[in-house]
């Protein structure tokens, strides 16, 4: 039993040593925590920012945590309950609004009112994505919305001259480029309402403007859903559009036998990495018909529970100002919502990388046509009520009519509870 006893001793020792030195979270008087959403690949950049931020402010400490999407919620919710929320958080899509509705986030409206210079930094429409009940809760960190990528060689082969200009043309184009399993005409991402432009361009409204009642259960919506389902049966739209996550549709498009991909701008870098066929000559970039697009941007907010809100606000301004935002835009080749920065980086890209330029340019055009970004405080509940039903119809499990009826029933309930 010798080894066992010694092991026990060492274990106890290890436990002891690691119990004492660790300070309770948030005790350092001037410490803030920065929680990011899956941007670990920019480790160097963010650590650089923190160094600079600390250097300019003696006695200030910034702790950086990064969590991947699925882990973000459990972590943040637990920290909220324990009363130790990270001071500055970076969330994707509508999650920020939900945290705001939950009372987790600091209202930035008065701060922005005080500092007009900060507010005018950002594209108003993107800034507006995080307005909940008239208050700003987040600033743009980096922004994306959907667009239409298309495979020019496949278009040429099918005798198509240019990108579709209407919903029906999307379907007919898709049909033309579909041949059995060898190739599919159209794909879209489906998470976070990213597929919504397909409905928006047909004038389908999800809810009434006051967000109180459902408005989608109309004959037109039934017709649209039915057409999409039929096109899916005919393989003109690949099933993966309705079942895949982020990798499958992008990977498939990268494989080179998908005619059109409706996805947001980061998709480009993914399928470029997968598909050797992707060149400025072969890749087409366009807006969806009617210039509709669903944003899926990253915002920065401050937790109400922050011990040092002013420092957190200071950090927020620091991260989003031209210097830092510029570096991020440069390294990640993205747009930040900071008007000046995006202007400069696009000008630079126009020479260096025309394709990326073309892709990113769309992100700043027609920002007034953004859809699928209702300012719900319970977005994910609404989604849970709506999407599975629609998905069932798209995959031919239910007929469009009853699917939309069920969706309406469940969604009305959620809206009523909110």
């Amino acid at each position, binding site marked *: 039993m010798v080894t066992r006893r010694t092991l026990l001793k060492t274990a106890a020792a290890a436990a002891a040593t690691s119990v004492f030195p660790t300070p309770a979270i948030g005790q350092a008087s001037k410490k803030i925590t920065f929680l990011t959403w899956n941007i670990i690949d920019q480790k160097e950049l963010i650590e650089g920012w923190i160094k600079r931020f600390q250097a300019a402010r003696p006695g200030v400490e910034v702790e950086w945590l990064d969590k991947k999407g699925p882990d973000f919620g459990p972590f943040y919710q637990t920290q909220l309950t*324990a009363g130790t929320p990270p001071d500055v958080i970076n969330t994707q899509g509508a999650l920020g609004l939900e945290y705001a509705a939950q009372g987790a986030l600091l209202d930035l409206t008065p701060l922005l009112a005080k500092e007009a210079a900060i507010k005018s930094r950002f594209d108003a429409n993107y800034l507006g994505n995080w307005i909940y009940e008239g208050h700003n809760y987040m600033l743009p960190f980096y922004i994306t919305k959907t667009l239409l990528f298309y495979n020019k060689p496949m278009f040429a082969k099918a005798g198509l001259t240019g990108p579709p200009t209407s919903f029906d043309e999307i379907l007919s184009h898709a049909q033309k480029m579909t041949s059995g399993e060898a190739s599919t005409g159209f794909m879209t991402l489906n998470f976070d309402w990213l597929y919504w432009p397909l409905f928006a361009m047909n004038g389908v409204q999800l809810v009434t403007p006051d967000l109180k009642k459902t408005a989608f259960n109309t004959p037109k919506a039934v017709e649209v859903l039915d057409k999409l389902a039929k096109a899916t049966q005919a393989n003109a739209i690949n099933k993966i559009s309705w079942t895949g996550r982020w990798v499958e549709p992008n990977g498939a498009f990268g494989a080179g036998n998908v005619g059109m991909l409706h996805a947001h701008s980061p998709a480009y870098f993914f399928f470029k990495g997968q598909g050797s066929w992707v060149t400025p000559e072969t890749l087409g970039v366009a807006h969806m018909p009617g210039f509709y697009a669903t944003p899926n941007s990253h915002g920065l907010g401050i937790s109400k529970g922050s011990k040092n809100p002013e420092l957190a606000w200071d950090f927020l301004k620091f991260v989003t100002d031209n210097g830092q935002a510029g570096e991020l835009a440069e390294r990640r080749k993205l747009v930040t919502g900071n008007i000046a920065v995006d202007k400069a980086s696009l000008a630079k890209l126009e020479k260096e990388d025309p394709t990326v330029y073309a892709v990113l340019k769309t992100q700043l055009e027609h920002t007034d046509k953004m859809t699928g970004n209702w300012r719900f405080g319970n977005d994910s509940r609404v989604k849970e009520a709506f999407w599975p039903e629609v998905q069932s119809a798209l995959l031919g499990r239910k007929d469009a009519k009853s699917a939309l009826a069920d969706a309406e029933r469940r969604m009305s309930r959620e809206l009523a509870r909110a």
Partner: protein
Amino acid sequence: MAESTIRRATPLLALRHLALVVVSFVMLVPFYWVLKTAITNENIYAYPPGILPREPHLYNFVDVWYLIPFPRYLANSIIVSTIAVIGNVVFNALAGYALTRDFPGRRAVLALFLSCMLIPFQAAIIPAYLVTAKMGLLNTYFGLAFPLLSTIVCIFVFKAAFEAVPRSLIDAARIDGLSEWRIIVRVLLPLSKPAIATNVILSFIWSWNNFLWPLLITRDPLMQTLPLGLARFLSYMEDTTGALYAFAVMVLVPSILVFLMAQKEFIRGLTSGATKG
């Protein structure tokens, strides 16, 4: 008689092997894919699927080593798992033995243990976190290992093993005046080596692969365990990169090692001899 058995034995033996080979095949195919993807840079969604690895290499493992602070995470994982294994072997043996004795409220305890198994951790996250915070064990090895210090399944493994030991042996030992401690250490445990092995293997694996708990209670990067490295490989490129699978393999190896070391106890005959006594 003897030769007849032999004559019957051979086709039977072939059948056994056949069955096992089939099972092994089913078990190995997905496994082969983990390995294959780990030694190539193929996108697993590429079509058509390649059966054999194209230009295999081992550099993904090097990447894993450097893309996360692997040695540090490894050390953390080993410490935490060691604590868990020791806790399990000791506490479960004691509890298991207690459950073989009869005492007032035995059924109640039994019921409590069984029902404790039926609570999913996903539903326990928040209270478990708060409790650990109260005890000041956030960010500590002990806090990481605590929830797994004793596991019910393994308690029942011990219970079952102890019950299979003939009462006569224990009574004899009692008559010789051995204390309860000595009965466990000198009589029961030596006869329950497979149970010990099972405890070691299972508790090791459970704490080794534990993801959600470390994710929640470690803020300090230096306290993180191997599974937390996972998120890094899933980031951005999701699951299309060989590095992810290389990582999975590297995390797997220690568990297999423990299994191989412990499974000596599953070889028929080691224990049976003693039980004849």
